[in-house]
């Protein structure tokens, strides 16, 4: 007998046939979707909202700022606040400084971290366990504990007495970029332990057979690393570079301690409040002497916005690369 094709049944008919199960299941799924949508919408709003508020309030002129009827949408647009903040934070210079310093330091950090992580992941050598303990110590110890001794060390930098014999006095390395570059080149930069950990987990996941095949074909250890490991590791190295760049960009501790000779944007931001007060004290006319808290907040918010915008642009283009490295770390556990 030829089987008749099924007619398209209505929802009510299918529900009846399943004994009421279909309706319950659909209702449950819809409820879950609704709750999930509300929750995620709320969270995303919480995260995005400060950016939007800052941006909208940054273009408000003074009348709108003190006007109680203007909450978010400005009536009088002005770019004066931007001009003022640019002037107070030495704008093109500080941002460019930050950009090249971050790029250079991140390169140094990632370069060193790749080498060291490869060693920890693929080789066995004496004192390896001790050095792994050192890595854990590196992650745990807050840099603030070492702040004072490092500062004093670099004030009178003397490598085993060499400089004293040559120059007659120890080196004063206090404002230059050399101390921090040295630290980054030897895996002591900002959050370097986390970078080491991520790269170590990645290199542990590379199959041993690849290395053995390279060995059979006559590659030395260094050549295996350069020709085989590095090209495959390029995505994760790129994401480590991005992480390091972002951490360095917003960092305040290392910049104020070790890079005080250069105007970086984060040090400009931390000193902004003092400069705003100074500016208004200088240019105060008779009636408007001093500056209100709201104005200070607006200007500070603008500086934060200017700091975030390059990072946001970077994030938009490289968002996948950021997440990828952590995904790799997690999936190897």
């Amino acid at each position: 007998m030829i089987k008749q094709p099924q007619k398209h049944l209505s929802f009510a008919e299918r529900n009846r046939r399943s004994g009421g199960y279909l309706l319950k299941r659909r209702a449950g799924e819809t409820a879950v979707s609704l709750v999930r949508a509300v929750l995620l919408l709320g969270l995303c709003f919480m995260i995005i909202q400060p950016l939007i508020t800052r941006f909208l309030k940054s273009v408000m002129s003074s009348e709108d700022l003190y006007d109680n009827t203007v909450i978010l949408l400005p009536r009088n647009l002005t770019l004066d606040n931007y001009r003022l903040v640019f002037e107070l934070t030495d704008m093109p210079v500080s941002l460019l400084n930050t950009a090249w310093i971050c790029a250079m330091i991140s390169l140094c950090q990632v370069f060193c971290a790749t080498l060291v992580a490869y060693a920890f992941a693929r080789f066995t050598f004496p004192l390896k366990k001790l050095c792994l303990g050192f890595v854990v110590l590196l992650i745990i110890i807050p840099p603030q504990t070492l702040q004072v001794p490092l500062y004093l060390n670099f004030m009178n930098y003397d490598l085993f007495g060499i400089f004293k014999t040559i120059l007659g006095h120890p080196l004063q390395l206090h404002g230059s970029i050399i101390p921090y570059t040295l630290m980054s080149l030897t895996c002591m930069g900002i959050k370097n332990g986390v970078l080491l950990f991520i790269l170590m987990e990645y290199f542990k996941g590379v199959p041993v057979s690849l290395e053995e095949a390279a060995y059979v074909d006559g590659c030395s250890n260094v050549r295996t690393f350069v020709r085989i490991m590095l090209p495959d590791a390029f995505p994760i190295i790129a994401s480590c570079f991005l992480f390091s760049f972002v951490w360095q960009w917003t960092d305040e501790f290392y910049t104020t301690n070790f890079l005080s000779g250069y105007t970086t944007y984060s040090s400009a931001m931390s000193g902004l409040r003092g400069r705003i007060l100074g500016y208004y004290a200088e240019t105060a006319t008779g009636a408007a002497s001093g500056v209100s808290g709201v104005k200070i907040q607006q200007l500070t918010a603008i500086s934060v916005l200017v700091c975030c915008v390059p990072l946001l642009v970077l994030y938009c283009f490289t968002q996948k690369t950021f997440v990828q490295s952590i995904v790799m770390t997690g999936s190897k556990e």
Partner: protein
Amino acid sequence: MKSTGYREHWYSGITDAVGVFVPWSRNYKTIASRRARTGFLFMLPFLIGFIAFLMKPLVQSVVMSMSEISLVPGSGYDMKNVGIANFNYALRVDAGFSGSLVRSVTKMITNTLAIMVLSFVLAVIINGEFRGRLLVRAILFLPVILYSGILPDIENTTSTYKMMAGVAEEVTQSGGVNLSQGLQDLLAVSGMGAGVFDFLFRLIDSIYEIVMSSGIQIVVFLSGLQTIPQSMYEAASIEGCSAWECFWKITFPMICPLMLVNCIYTIVDCFMRNDNEVMQWIGQVMYSQGKLGPAAAMSWLYFAVAAAFIGISTLIIRKGVGMIHD
């Protein structure tokens, strides 16, 4: 049966390890030794940096924390050993340190628990299929970029711009009705102990900070969730497991190893934040009051507390993972 010529003494391990570098030893020319030498060379920058920039300052910091320091302008500093007087000062005499330490540690514990729970729940939610999933993931990772370094400190001082976080104070100031405050008052009036809910209310008021600190944790949990094969869930649902049972019997045990990594990262992150009360107090003692010895002692106490917490949580989680995996 041991072959001749193979010497096994109690010191053989040490001599073999040293012999990797010593050209005339018996195992210098083996392949293993060659690889060990290369590996050691690769690792050398880290060792140099660690000894020069961490070991040495660490030892100096310990010495400093036990001495009284006065800066001699022009040629460094002058130290005088005073034993544990600095620690005594930090714990007993100093006005703000012990208080801010206790507050900071309490905040760290509550925040860590909240961050772990919240990021786990969010990871499970995002793991499901729904429209806009990639966008939500991108937005939830955004705080890692925008809430690091100097920015939390500045955000705390510009409270008009974080509506959700500052809404409690704003609403009460403008005379409106604040939901959490109202709930607290209701509970106080009805006679229930305030302390029980104090913890919860403190969490709710700091939800902005918790959400902004859980970016990386969410992604780590998410990656772990994605390694669980779908066939497990299908087999379980065939056997008749409800969703709740599936969660506790499949998802939770397979995620437990990642909890250790996340917990350690969260604790370390909490301790190193710049807007930490203790850090700011130490900075103030160091720069405005100029007492370098007590400042070093304080930062050592802080580090000791951090290390203790990391150790305790590692033990707890390892024990818990061991129990679950039985």
